[in-house]
């Protein structure tokens, strides 16, 4: 990664998750200059917070390692972290994009030695772990963090803690007077890859997320299973740290629901099928999973994964949208509902309930700077009216990783087509 001046032959990629990184890398490896804008202090996005991928059960960090190596070796990509796009002016082949960059308070001198963290005692919520845990106010976002550079939480700026951190750094890496700045970046095309956010489970009132400690979301469950996570990879339930051996997975938590998300989020069925594997992996003896579903959407080649899980005696499937959750004296969440296959009523206690929360675009169509055509869920549509702003990955649809990467690769080509035209015109 190096600094190069952005021109209208540059491709600007918004979002440094797997889609944004892919789009940036594919474009750069085809010889184009790219500016990659990420709002978090490190690249990786949503997938870097997953423990395993379906259907291979391999680890997202493995692909992230490869992509980061591609990035480190490629001088054509300029990465801006803690940066957000606030405006897009101009048109196809000639955009000026305003990028607001928040202060990191740490410069490139940082060697990630960790002395600043030792000097700081303030703990702040750890968003990488969906706030299930905390970390120091001087922190490396994760072991895979790229750039591998510490961050100071604004909470301690102006406090003695910050001075202590500065004093602890031998390399002059800490700059407490860093200010927020807004850059104007020229670009011929923009790839919008801001990805997705989990639907706010608290809005699904009958499930009592927020009221019942042992009702959590599928993304939080990923962190529990991950060795890098707050429990060091143990499936312990939040209320009392008890081992969660009897786990319920509730599908369509927000999705396929006109009171919440109208669309099907596509990934949740596979994600829950995958997560039953976590339960079995951690508790081979007496782990037990129950999936409450409307339709199991193990689409195309994923079907065999579904068939494998179906064959597993520790997993049971109940065709039912759980009506409500209550809590019993032991703090077990109790699922109430009717199995619609032959009308069987149930009120079943579990150790832990995992809500397979739906996907919504992190930036809804209407909130994207510029006039972008999006569907009713806020996903960017492919539309000539969008000029050279191309949606990629989950900003364009509810996609699994594989499809998101395809989408990002396609978006890269569309952007390249534009900057090639610009180059031709200028030649």
């Amino acid at each position: 990664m190096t600094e190069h001046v952005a021109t209208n032959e540059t491709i600007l990629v918004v979002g440094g998750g797997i889609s944004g990184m892919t789009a940036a890398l594919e474009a750069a490896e085809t010889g184009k200059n790219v500016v990659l804008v990420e709002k978090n202090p490190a690249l990786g996005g949503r997938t870097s917070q997953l423990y395993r991928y379906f259907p291979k059960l391999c680890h997202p960090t493995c692909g992230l390692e490869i992509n980061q190596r591609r990035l480190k070796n490629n001088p054509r990509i300029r990465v801006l972290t803690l940066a957000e796009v606030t405006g897009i002016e101009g048109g196809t082949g000639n955009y000026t994009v305003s990028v607001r960059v928040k202060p990191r308070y740490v410069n490139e001198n940082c060697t990630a030695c960790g002395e600043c963290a030792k000097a700081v005692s303030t703990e702040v919520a750890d968003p990488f772990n969906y706030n299930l845990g905390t970390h120091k106010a001087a922190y490396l976002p994760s072991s895979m963090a790229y750039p591998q550079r510490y961050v100071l939480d604004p909470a301690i700026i102006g406090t003695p803690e910050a001075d202590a951190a500065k004093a602890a750094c031998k390399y002059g890496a800490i700059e407490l007077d860093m200010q927020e700045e807004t850059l104007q970046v020229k670009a011929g095309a923009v790839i919008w890859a801001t990805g997705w956010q989990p639907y706010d489970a608290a809005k699904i009132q009958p499930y009592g997320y927020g009221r019942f400690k042992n009702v959590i979301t599928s993304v939080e469950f990923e962190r529990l299973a991950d060795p890098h996570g707050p429990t060091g990879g143990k499936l312990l339930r939040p209320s009392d740290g008890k081992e969660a051996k009897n786990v319920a997975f509730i599908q369509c938590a927000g999705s396929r629901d006109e009171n919440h998300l109208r669309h099907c989020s596509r990934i949740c069925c596979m994600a829950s099928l995958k997560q039953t594997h976590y339960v079995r992996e951690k508790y081979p003896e007496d782990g037990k999973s129950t999936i409450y579903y409307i339709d199991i959407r193990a689409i195309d080649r994923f079907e065999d994964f579904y068939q494998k899980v179906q064959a597993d005696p520790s997993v049971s499937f109940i065709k039912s949208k759980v009506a409500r959750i209550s809590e019993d004296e032991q703090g077990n969440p109790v699922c109430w509902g009717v199995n619609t296959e032959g009308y069987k009523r149930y009120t079943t206690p579990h150790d832990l309930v995992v809500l397979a929360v739906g996907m919504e675009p992190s930036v809804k169509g209407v909130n994207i700077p510029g006039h972008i055509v999006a569907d009713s869920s806020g996903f960017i549509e492919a539309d000539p009216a969008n000029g050279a702003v191309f949606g990629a990955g989950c900003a364009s649809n509810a996609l699994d990783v594989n499809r998101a990467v395809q989408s990002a690769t396609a978006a890269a080509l569309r952007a390249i087509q534009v900057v090639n035209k610009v180059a031709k015109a200028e030649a």
Partner: protein
Amino acid sequence: MSANTAMAEKYRNNFLKEIEEQVEMGDWVKMCMQCGVCSGSCPTNFQSAWEHPPQELFMMIRAGKREEVLTTTSMWNCTSCYNCIVRCPRKLPITHIMHGIAEYAHRLGVAPKMQPTRFFSGLFWKNATKTGRVNELKLSMGLYFKNGFGAGVKEGMKMKDVALGLIKAKRLNPFEILGGHTCKDQKGIQAMLKKAYEIERSRKAAKTAG
């Protein structure tokens, strides 16, 4: 030919269409995706199982199980708590559909005769519309005496304490039996309702014809 057989004839093998045209909110039935949230949300279904919970009724309607649907006691268990409505991911007005199917079965005279709520429901409406306002005493008496005088006295005795309590608390007026609260313009109300029934009947007939 009874109203029921007439309708059965008319809609032969398309019970769904019959429901859509003849039942209030019936055109929503096709929108159900069988998630079962209504059945799971229904309080009486958990206190004392419905023969067929809402989502199953919807499926039975699509499957043309006319007889079973119209004669079941199920809908009559609805307490109008509206849990199903607020939770349905397809926004089906389930409470109203339940009432609608019940009303239709009642209209066709195939609803279970002895279903107490069916009886009370009719009784309530007659009571309320007779004078424009509900006469709670007559309402309860009417309910207790539905199975004749003897049964009525027995029922009434069961409720003796409750009744006396209410009277003592001035929340039940024994003299209501002699009239009680009424609206002034009863003539107007009757005429208005008569018209309303006419219109509704003709609208439904129109659909049948169409």
